[in-house]
């Protein structure tokens, strides 16, 4: 059986990859995907804790269902905003979305 620490490590790695992608990638869609990775790290954690935690119970899995649902809504909004930007500016490159940089 894989111990709890293994799952937490997977979560931490996913979260770190998400943060790395967020900070380095230029494409707007990749940025949104990186955020999804961070949220999935949360889900891995929650489900692992709900199975192998100190006081294991079902709440963590229910929490993760809510997280997944809301993350989908958030991604939809993010993509819709990218479409609006693309229509006005013909780019989704995050480094070019900078008219307010001072």
């Amino acid at each position: 059986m894989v111990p709890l620490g293994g799952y937490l490590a997977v979560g931490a790695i996913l979260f770190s990859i998400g943060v790395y992608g967020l900070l380095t990638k230029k494409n707007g869609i990749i940025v949104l995907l990186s955020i999804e990775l961070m949220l999935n790290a949360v889900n891995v954690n929650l489900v692992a804790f709900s199975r192998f935690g100190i006081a294991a119970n079902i709440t963590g899995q229910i929490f993760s269902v809510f997280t997944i649902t809301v993350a989908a809504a958030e991604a939809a909004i993010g993509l819709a905003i990218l479409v609006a930007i693309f229509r006005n500016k013909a780019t989704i490159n995050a480094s070019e979305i900078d008219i307010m940089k001072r």
Partner: protein
Amino acid sequence: MTVDLLTLNWGLLAPELTIVILSVIITLADLFMKNGGDRKAFAWLSVLGIALATYFTYQDLGQPVQSLLNDTYRVDSFGTMFKLIMLIGTGLVFMMSIYYVDKKEIKYDGEYYYLLLTALLGSMIMASSGDLITLYIGLELLSISSYILAGIRKTNLKSNEAAFKYVVTGSVSSAILLYGASFLYGVTGTTNIIGIAQAVQGAFNAGFDFYIYLGFFMFVVGLGYKISIVPAYMWAPDVYEGAPTPITAFLSVVSKAAGFAIVMRLLFTIFAAGNIATGEINAETGMPINFFSDEMTFYLAVLAGLTMIIGNTMAARQINVKRMFALSSVAQAGYILVPLAVVKINSPVVMNISFSNMIFYLMAYLMMNLGAFAVISLVTKANDTDELKAFAGLYHRNPWIGVAMTFFLLSLAGLPVTAGFIGKFNIFVNALLFESYYLAAIMVVTSVVSYFYYFNIVRQMYMRTGNTEAKLAVPFGLQLVVLLTFLGTVLFGMFPNVLIDFISTNFSVMDLFTPGM
């Protein structure tokens, strides 16, 4: 345990259900109306509905703590106080919006009104949540609605950019918040906030302190984004500049109040005062055992100090008035954080003083900041520029608006005869009383810095001449907002005891830690 949905006390949800029904009615009416039709009636309908919800919320005052659905949703004096702030704030934002929203920029303007209502609903859920899951749903309902509202001027590139930056920073911070929450769930085995509070000290002593620290810091970063304090304030200038001005006002007042509500619910219930709930007393000092509270208030004090310094100095450099007010509201968040950072968690009476000061300042901030934003939205729209020079000669174009704006600025700067002065003075005395001399000193010095940029606007209004001397007409909705907020700012400045008494009779900090019936 089975819960019969029919026997639940649904009356407790009356304010929230009013807002839900209102937004459903407006959504449906929007569908059935002709595409080009005028939708300004929606705004007045919303104001009426919000007035009804405010009435229901007012009825909740003075009740004991009650909870619904296995303590996931709580009706307590703390949440009710914040809900009043949010409802009044959103009502004023609606009145501001009536004149701002036009078909040229916002083609489907019905969306604007019902999204603002769902955002309000989200903030109310946040204020009343008793469980991390409920809290997260409320947070996201508020956030997702405000992402769309920030970018609702679809053809405006600035608005698009603001929305994208808001979506990215917002989702990242909620991911960080959740990652922290997952560890707290892991070590305590519950998502109920009071449940965590009761279990967290045991987990700390059992050697899970690393996870609790991790959870705490992630909470601070994730929640700090919502109230725009130092580690996560960089989004504020860009989003505030690009969003429609009434939405900027909404973000700076209602969204921030909701943020402070969850800061207190999470940080203070879980990390500081869970021991008050369990009633454990240290045998040597006779005080409740605080495993984390001194450390936590130290971190909060550092953040509050940095927020005041950075917000005020950066605001002094801005020439765009919306960016300036974004950074001014960052600085104000620093002031509001001071009573939380100096609080000594040893007795309910002492905590009540700090938290009441904070609620007083939030109410004053609601008045003065909304009033200032009403004037800003009028002036920037009339002159078609966001630069400071839009204010040039405002006093000569409309003396009443000029005078009202002067009072809002005096109040924001914390000078006498205004509610802002009383609020800031209370916070200052509070900091001195609890021996946080550094914070008090930083407050005074940064307030002096803030005079510089607030009076810059005053100078523009009185001493500069604009391109035109023509009289500036003020639409009815805006007149009403400026009048109400002006009365609030000045009257609560002259008779602060009215508001202070109201808070002290209706607000008890112990409600935060009492499990509901």
